[in-house]
């Protein structure tokens, strides 16, 4: 697809999600401002409920290729559920999730496991395997999915650990590490197969502001080096200002607005303005 055509598509893809009958969606313009690049991941009218609790309620969202995208939104609005849908850990009740042109819910198990090799995921607490030391944790995907010899595996693992500043912690067990170190180790493990798409589930949770800033810098540096679609889920505006190239604001299971970061930070939408400014006055209250 040519770039002009894609831009035209993007420009016309101003979703008409506003449901006039329902006042709770009055700030949800669903506007997806053009990014000029193809989407790596697309959510098409995705609905998901857990029992009576409706989490995603007609989510339409695109994650552009080769950019650091952030999904921002208040707590409990369905951000982590989005990540689980991207990698097929959850399936939508309705709608579709498309990764590099292929529908995730339609994939067979083998196809799904194969598709997941494109992904690296950093979970909230790192999700390191408690029975393995750091070296084995980071080496695990390489040992399972490649035919590399042990020497080459260790060379890659040590390089990745060095990138995240854990050169001398290889023989430590996960329970001997601080929260920040576990996150960095999880980051190293997520990157070890050179994935096309890296997902970060609240990388800043539980970290002090300085370490959050350092982690954001690390994400930026590694993205510059490796490229790929990075998706960061957070409700920390400072992190968004530091690293986001593309922002999607999610609330009540739908996109309020999404687009390039600088345009979102200057949005006219009162909800987006309030949330990105971290202001107490505006449409978002304690409810």
């Amino acid at each position: 697809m040519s770039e002009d055509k894609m831009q035209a598509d993007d420009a016309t893809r101003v979703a008409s999600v506003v449901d006039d009958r329902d006042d709770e969606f009055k700030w949800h313009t669903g506007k997806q401002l053009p990014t000029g690049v193809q989407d790596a991941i697309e959510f098409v009218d995705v609905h998901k409920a857990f029992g009576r609790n409706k989490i995603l309620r007609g989510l339409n969202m695109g994650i552009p290729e080769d950019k650091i995208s952030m999904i921002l939104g208040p707590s409990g609005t369905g951000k982590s559920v989005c990540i689980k849908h991207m990698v097929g850990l959850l399936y939508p009740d309705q709608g579709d999730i498309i990764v590099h042109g292929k529908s995730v819910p339609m994939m067979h198990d083998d196809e799904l496991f194969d598709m997941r090799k494109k992904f690296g995921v950093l979970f909230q607490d790192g999700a390191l395997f408690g029975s393995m030391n750091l070296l084995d944790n980071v080496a695990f995907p390489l040992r399972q999915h490649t035919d590399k010899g042990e020497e080459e595996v260790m060379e890659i693992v040590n390089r990745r650990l060095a990138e995240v500043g854990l050169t001398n912690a290889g023989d430590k067990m996960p329970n001997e590490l601080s929260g920040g170190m576990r996150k960095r180790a999880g980051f190293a493990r997520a990157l070890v197969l050179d994935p096309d798409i890296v997902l970060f589930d609240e990388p800043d949770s539980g970290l002090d502001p300085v370490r959050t800033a350092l982690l954001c810098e690390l994400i930026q540096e590694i993205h510059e080096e490796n490229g790929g679609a990075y998706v960061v889920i957070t409700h920390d505006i400072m992190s968004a200002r530091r690293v986001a190239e593309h922002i999607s604001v999610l609330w009540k299971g739908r996109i309020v607005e999404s687009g390039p970061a600088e345009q979102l930070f200057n949005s006219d939408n009162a909800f987006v303005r309030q949330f990105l400014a971290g202001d107490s006055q505006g449409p978002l209250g304690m409810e």
Partner: protein
Amino acid sequence: MEWLTVPREWLTSAGEIAKFCGKILGQVYSLKVFRFFGETLRQSGILIVSSTIVIWGLVFIIGLQCGTEGAYFSRSVGAPSQAGVFAAWCDLRELVPYAFGYMMAAKVGTGIVAELGSMRISDEIDALEVMGIDSVLFLCATRLLASWLVLPFVYLAAIGAGFFASYLAVVQQVGDVSSGGYFLVFWMFQNPPDLVYSLIKGMVMATVVVLVGCYYGYNASGGPVGVGTATAKSMVLNIVMVHLIGMLGTQVFWGANPRAPIGG
């Protein structure tokens, strides 16, 4: 009809457990599990190191009880030389399988629930999945195969521990019968098929305990409290299943034919 809600939930739950266990058995039967043979060997090692001594110890104590009861009972009916009958049946047919089943449920089953449950709530299972690894295959099928590789030997050795303990109680402690007299009767009242039947009982118990442990651990939810609840539920189900298997095993293997040199 409201009164049907609880039985319907039980039925649904039984169906889910059966489906999950069927998947694990299928992965072992189709040999897919050999993709992770290293993990299987690791789990085998953990079983040997952490559970063997406890199982043997419990069975040894049960063997002492069988011997003591057998010796005094046979003395009370004026046939102390027949103490070996009681010990042979008590050890091989009933109490070794039960003691083995109890210890499997208490040590191995709950251990699996706790380990898999904490992996579930700390996202480790999700992490495996997103690395493109079939987590049921990696975590559950490997544990089942490991138990099949290791536990027959553990069980046979446990029978040996039970026999030895009964011998100590009857011949060395109570001492109403000589060693030769005890063994004559003891071996007369059992033969190799009985050993195989006993082994089948024990292995079916072990298989069920591992599968139930995997189900409750893998599907745990609700944080640490949820893992605790899942552990308790698995223990209850496993104890019920151990008794059911014990009862059915005795009915099937010895219910119609006591396989004993009594009468004609």
